[in-house]
């Protein structure tokens, strides 16, 4: 960027500022381009739905695989309602989906707090990091669903073992990314902070955490998808509600329509989680998207 003329860069900068809020957003696209992009994105999902539909007509699978319209019909029946006072959610949503989401989010919250706090400490202190290294690699490489029994044993059969299993399983990407992010702040930025005699508190909250935030959020994104998986796994045993419980129950009574409706619900949940996360990330990391597009 050095050799580019100053006025040119300034002009680009001004133009960007005019669009405000989101630096780095590409300029407006035409409707046709937008449609074409959408079409490209729908090819693979479309093919998968077609495959599903086809499978539902096969004599061997018919019993277990319901057709997409049936599944969606059941989904609407079970999980949605027309009652605004129930937030337009059906019985299955209130009884099973919301408790599941609560557990996943509680697990995620615990994982974020523990991952960021411990990760920051380990990122700052080489000594702590060296001391914790073996334990962390042990924890990371344990197949955590195998520990479900241990969690039940230690924490009883309520929500706690489930939330803690989710947290324990998904904390690692956040932890490792935080360590990495904190270390990537760079010698010069820390030196600048030292020269300007910035108090430790400001160094932590205004330099280290913002500087590490792109990596931390990348870790949280991975953990978010994992949290849904672990949510289901934690509810397969010793559960009284939840989507995992519903999956097992519907199979036990050969209610495959109900089973597929839960799968549809999971897809919708995954999408909602992802969209929500993307919105948060865009707000927090507007500077980073722009910075990486410009310089690297």
């Amino acid at each position: 960027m050095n050799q580019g003329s100053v006025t040119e860069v300034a002009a680009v900068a001004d133009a960007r500022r005019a669009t405000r809020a989101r630096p780095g957003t590409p300029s407006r696209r035409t409707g046709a381009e937008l449609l074409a992009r959408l079409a490209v994105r729908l090819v693979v999902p479309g093919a998968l739905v077609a495959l599903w539909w086809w499978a539902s007509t096969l004599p061997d699978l018919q019993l277990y695989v319901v057709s997409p319209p049936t599944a969606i019909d059941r989904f609407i029946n079970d999980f949605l309602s027309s009652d605004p006072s129930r937030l337009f959610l059906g019985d299955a949503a209130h009884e099973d989906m919301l408790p599941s989401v609560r557990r996943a989010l509680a697990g995620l919250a615990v994982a974020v707090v523990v991952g960021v706090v411990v990760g920051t400490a380990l990122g700052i202190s080489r000594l702590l990091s060296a001391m914790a290294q073996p334990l962390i690699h042990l924890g990371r490489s344990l197949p955590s669903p195998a520990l479900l029994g241990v969690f039940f044993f230690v924490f009883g059969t309520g929500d706690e073992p489930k939330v803690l299993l989710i947290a324990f399983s998904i904390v690692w990407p956040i932890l490792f990314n935080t360590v990495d992010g904190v270390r990537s702040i760079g010698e010069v930025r820390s030196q600048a902070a030292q020269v300007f005699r910035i108090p430790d508190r400001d160094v932590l909250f205004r330099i280290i955490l913002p500087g590490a935030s792109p990596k931390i959020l990348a870790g949280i994104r991975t953990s978010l998808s994992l949290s849904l998986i672990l949510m289901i796994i934690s509810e397969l045993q010793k559960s009284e509600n939840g989507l995992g419980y519903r999956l097992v129950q519907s199979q036990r009574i050969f209610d495959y329509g109900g089973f597929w409706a839960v799968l549809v619900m999971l897809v919708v949940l995954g999408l909602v989680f992802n969209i929500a996360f993307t919105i948060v990330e865009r707000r927090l990391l507007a500077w980073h998207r722009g910075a990486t597009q410009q310089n690297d």
Partner: protein
Amino acid sequence: MTEHVLGSEVPELQLTGVSRRYGDNLAVRSIDAAIPAHKISVIVGPSGCGKSTLLRMISGLDTPTDGEVRFEGAPVRGVPEGLAMVFQDYSRSLYPWMRVDKNVAFPIRRLPAAERAERVRFAIEEVGLKGKESLYPWQMSGGMQQRVAIARALASHPRLLLMDEPFASVDAQTRADLEDLVMRIQAELGITVLVVTHDIDESVYLADRIFVLSTPPSVVAEVIDVDLPRPRDHVSTKTEPEFVRIRGHVTSLLRRPDADAEGAHGSLVASTAAGEIA
């Protein structure tokens, strides 16, 4: 080697026998230097001669293994108050998640809001970035980013401004502009400026006093006072016989084979007519 005697002015910064050893490796050896107050001093030397090590010790980021650094009469232990620094690598010393005004205000966050706003406004105007307050650093050219770094240093009202190869990462035209900017600001505010560079032209153009370092383990090979009239400019100053003479002299000092233990002078930058001797 000439032992330089100061004028009447008390030195802002006094280095006495400063050495820094890393293991068996002696980076700088017994440096004596008196940096005069309210002037621009330049430390010039070949790459890897310990200039940055020296600057780190002056700023209190590092401590000498021998000798002492005194700032305004008091020995330097830790970063002293009244000192600010501009780093070579603006893209890594600025904070990309803060807009320009926040970057400039950051070192003085603890001041009352009104005073902080006033200082930021002044510093940004001083470096010619009025109207760019709400840009992010990465939306600007390298030269403009380095201006932000200078503004950030000025906002803390330093009495001593240290600059570590401040213009090594920008193009020649921008570099010339920034050199003039620093001289104008120094003249206006009367602060003491200490620049470290490997560029001989730049050292002569900026300096009231030049400290020429030898190759490592570095010592001060010579102290040269530059009496070229101010204000200086890139055309007339650089064609003055005195400028040409001093530049030639510094060049010859840095190229002198006997001052050079390992022949590491290849990295030396002399922008024009390097071998010229007056």
